[in-house]
Structure formats: C-alpha cells, structure tokens
C-alpha cells in the first residue's frame, strides 16, 4: 500500500481525512446554494435516503432478511408526524416530541411485520414484505372513510416545519453575514442526525447484537445451538430498521410540508434496496455511497441529458426522464456483472462471492 494511504500506521492521517470530510460537509450547502437552492434540497433528500438505506441495511445487510416493503416504515413515520403536526386534526405538537413517537410507532409496525414472518426466509419473506408495503400504502389511501384519518389520496397538507421556540427551520435568517435559508438549516439538522445514526450503526455492527445477526444470517439452527435467541434478534432487526425509517419519514414530512400515499409506492422500496445492494450489503460506508450515488446521479442526468442532446443533435430526441431510467438501469446491470458484492463490499460478502482460487 502507498505510504500515504497506510491508515493503520498513521492515525493522524485518519483524523486529517475525517477533518477534510467534515469541513467539506459543513461548507457544502453554501457552495451548492451558489448553483441553486434546488441542489441543497436534492442533497437533503439524498441524506434522507442515506438514513433509509442505513435502516434497511440492518435488516438486509446485517440480519440477512430481504425486505421489499421497507418504505412502509418511512410512510408510518411520515404520517405520524403529519397527523400530529398539521391542521388536519388541528394538532401541533413540537417535533422533538413527535419524532420519538414516530420512531416508536414505526418500530411497532416493524415487529408487526416481523412476528408473523419469523419462519420465512429468502424469496418467501420478500413476497410477504412486498405485500406489507402495499397494504400500508393502500390503507393510507383508503383510511379517509368512515373516519377521515389520513385524508386518502389527497394527502395531508400544511404540515408544520420543525421549530424550537422562535427558531423555525422554514425561515431564512442571516447570521454572521451568511444567509441560512430553510433548506440549509434542514441540511445541518439532517447532517447531525445522519452522523448520529452512522455512529450507532458502526457500534451496532461490532456489538454482541451485530455478531448475533451475523450468525442468524449464516445459519439459523447453528445460531440457536450457539445460544442465540434468533426470534429476538430477527424482531430486533426489523424494529431497529423500522425505527430509522420512521425517523427519516418524520423529517421528510416536515421538510416537504405535504405528504400523500404517492410518496410511498413500491418503486421507492426497490430504490432503497438498490442503494443497499449497489453500495454493498452489510457495509455501512458502502450503503452510504450507494444511497448518495442513486440519489444524485439521476438528478445530475436530469440536468445534463437535455442540454447535451441539444448540443449534439440540435434538438431533443429522447425525453430526459426516459433516458435517465435507461442509463440508471444500465449502470445497475454493469455493477451486478462486475461488482456483484456492491461498490464497497462488506468483508464477509466479498468472501462469499470470491472465486475459489481467491479464497484459498
């Protein structure tokens, strides 16, 4: 290894790297605001996807339970926030009270999904979770009668932004000569939450619980014979994953100010699964990379595909939306062919997919 990248023997280098990344992340929103506030918003959504991908990684990457309905927990968190902080019921609870409630409700739904599926694995579990995601969405769509709980397909509007006393996350403010717009304020909040959840994930992976999940993923009978309560561990994985989804959902609700069942369709679940798989199941940093890439690349394509066609052919041949999905799909196929364990594979998956001659 090049001495410059020999991180094991020079912890100072690691700290320098961390400092550079931290500084970049702190300055980032102001740099993006120069291009357009839209990009700050896009970054905020990207962070929400990172939170979702980290949550799903616990279920899929750590415990090995394929969940194709993960977005349901995002929906549960989002609706919990929306119903408790909007004119819909006339409730306006503070965000610091609702977010934990949303997380708890989502965790409850996680257990609700986990309990009946304890004996299922692989494809069968995937089908049930897929159904669960759809059930939640359809309920949200139809719970407007007889009692109007969710306002049906119209969704909930006028959701309160986060605020603390006089400080509101929706207002622009100038501080020390810098203009902090709403999205920039949310950016810092999201960044803080992301760092917290990342730290939690790293600790979790190296913990006793993380090891137990590893055993459950590898061989459930053997895990039980080792003294691991596999039932608890699987439910815990579902609950933890759902909790992170619920927190992300609550923040989504507040940032967006409006939610409807449309935001929680199956494609969203698949997108989050793609982030986890593409980045590298089970590897926290890989999952972050996957989420960042899959949130930004389509946006970048959206902004480049049209001008590029005009420059090349003089007029637009293919709709940006079409070509975006085309390139997106093609990139996923390439990655599955050449990096089947993901961009940054976890140590264990790398072994799993290595050829025999590499392993020996």
């Amino acid at each position: 290894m090049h001495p410059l990248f020999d991180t094991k023997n020079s912890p100072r280098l690691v700290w320098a790297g961390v400092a550079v990344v931290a500084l970049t992340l702190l300055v980032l929103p102001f740099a993006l605001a120069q291009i357009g506030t839209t990009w700050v918003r896009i970054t905020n959504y990207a962070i929400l996807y990172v939170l979702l991908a980290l949550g799903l990684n616990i279920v899929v990457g750590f415990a090995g339970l394929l969940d194709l309905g993960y977005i349901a927990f995002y929906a549960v968190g989002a609706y919990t926030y929306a119903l408790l902080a909007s004119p819909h019921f006339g409730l306006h609870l503070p965000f610091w009270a609702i977010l934990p409630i949303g997380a708890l409700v989502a965790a409850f739904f996680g257990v609700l999904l986990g309990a009946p599926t304890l004996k299922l694995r692989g494809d069968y579990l995937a089908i049930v979770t897929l159904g669960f995601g759809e059930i939640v969405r359809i309920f949200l769509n139809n719970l407007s009668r007889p009692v109007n709980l969710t306002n049906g397909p119209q969704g909930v509007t006028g959701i309160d932004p986060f605020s603390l006393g006089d400080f509101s996350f929706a207002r622009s403010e100038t501080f020390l000569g810098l203009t902090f717009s709403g999205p920039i304020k949310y950016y810092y909040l999201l960044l803080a939450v992301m760092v917290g959840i990342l730290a939690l994930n790293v600790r979790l992976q190296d913990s006793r619980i993380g090891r137990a999940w590893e055993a459950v993923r590898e061989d459930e009978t053997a895990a039980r014979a080792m003294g691991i309560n596999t039932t608890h561990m699987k439910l815990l994985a579902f609950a933890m994953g759902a909790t992170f989804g619920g927190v992300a959902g609550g923040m989504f609700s507040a940032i967006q100010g409006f939610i409807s069942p449309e935001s929680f369709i199956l494609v969203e679940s698949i997108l989050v699964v793609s982030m986890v798989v593409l980045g590298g199941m089970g590897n926290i940093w890989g999952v972050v990379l996957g989420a960042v890439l899959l949130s930004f690349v389509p946006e970048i394509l959206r902004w480049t595909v049209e001008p590029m066609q005009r420059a090349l052919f003089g007029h637009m041949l293919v709709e940006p939306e079409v070509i975006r999905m085309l390139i997106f799909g093609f990139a996923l196929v390439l990655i599955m062919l050449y990096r089947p364990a993901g961009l940054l594979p976890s140590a264990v998956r790398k072994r799993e997919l290595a050829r025999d001659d590499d392993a020996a």
Partner: protein
Amino acid sequence: MLLEVRGLEVHYGGIRAVKGVDLEVHAGELVCLIGANGAGKTSALRAICGLHARGGSVRYAGEPLEGRPVFELPRRGLVMVPEGRGVFPQLTVEENLAMGAFARTDADVGADIALRYQAFPRLRERRHQTAGTLSGGEQQMLAIARALMSRPKLLLLDEPSMGLAPLMVAKIFDIVREVAAQGVTILLVEQNARLALELADRGYVMESGAITLSGEAKALLADRKVREAYLGEGAG
C-alpha cells in the same frame, strides 16, 4: 443423572418418527445411539434440544426442559453439534470459534480459542480461512471445537462421521474420545455402529422409531442381532 428422556415422541404430520423412547445419560459417560438410516435418531436428538415439537419428558441436570427454548441450553452446558456440521460458511475459522462462546460473558474467550488451536492444529493453520472452504472433516473438527467453546457439560453429536472418508472418520472419533477423556459427557448419534460401540460406554439401538436394544457397548458389540443387522456379519 445428567440427561433423562422418558417416552419421547416426535410426529411429522400423521407419521410417528419417534415412538416413546426412554434414554439416560449419566455424568461422565459416552453413550451412543445407533441405528439405520431413517430410524429416527436425528429426530430424537433434535427433539431433546427442542428443535422439534416433542411428546414425553426430558430432564437435564435434574430439571425438566419443557418449555425451555433452544437458545437457553448452551448457557446451561448442553450443546448440540447439528447434523451436517452447521458451521457458519462465510465466517472465518476464528470467527466461528468466537461465535461458539456467544453464550459466555467472561473474558477468557481468547485463551479458550488458543486452547482449541492446541487441540486442533489444523484449525490454527486455517484460522483466517472461511469455514466454507474447509474440507468436510475439518468442518466437523471446527463444529466440535466451536461447541467446546461454550464449555459444555453435555455434548450432543449428530452423525459426526457422515460423508467423511474412512481416515477422517477415524480422526474424528479420536477427537470424540479425547473430548470425552476431558470429562465432557457425550451423547453420540451414529450410523457407523461398530466405531460408535467401540468408543462408547453404553449404547442404544434404535429401529423404526423405538429403542430395541440397550446395554453395555461391549455386550452390544458381541450381540448376535447387532452383529447381523449393523456390523455386516451375515447370519451363520
């Protein structure tokens, strides 16, 4: 008495795979349960641990195991090495061993791993290799070593010789003998009747779900019916 099984029953739908088995294992003994393929040996063993629903009663160290979940047993010193070994294929040998100590909360796990390496030099050589890349015999060694990591009082071994070459079978039986010599009580389920009986103190013969013969291993080895049915010696 360390393990006392009374009237053990296992059903698969309408089929009775184990029909009222009585079995005892005393502390310090090596007891084998032999029988042909499909006699219900593995079902009986899995039912004892609670991996299958069962009828009848199982007492371990004087306490009934009814309603006790499987994962509690290692903490109480009862560990099973499942049929087909059940190593974690994508984890390294060392990670597998560490996982074996999951039920323990003390800090001597590292020292215990070193002890296992002393007993199984082959595993030390392959400590950073994934368990899935080991040969069948090495995987069986690893499975036994991993089970020992939880410091069992009673070890249940399910067909450790299955699918192994004769030389490796002999080696695995040597290991079982050594483990027993260290004071671990063992209940061994085996198809290889001769080797099992030569090793064991006592034996049970199982036939279509029921125990048909039991006694001192030496006596069973000399028994005419056993010799004909299981040791491949034709009737005279």
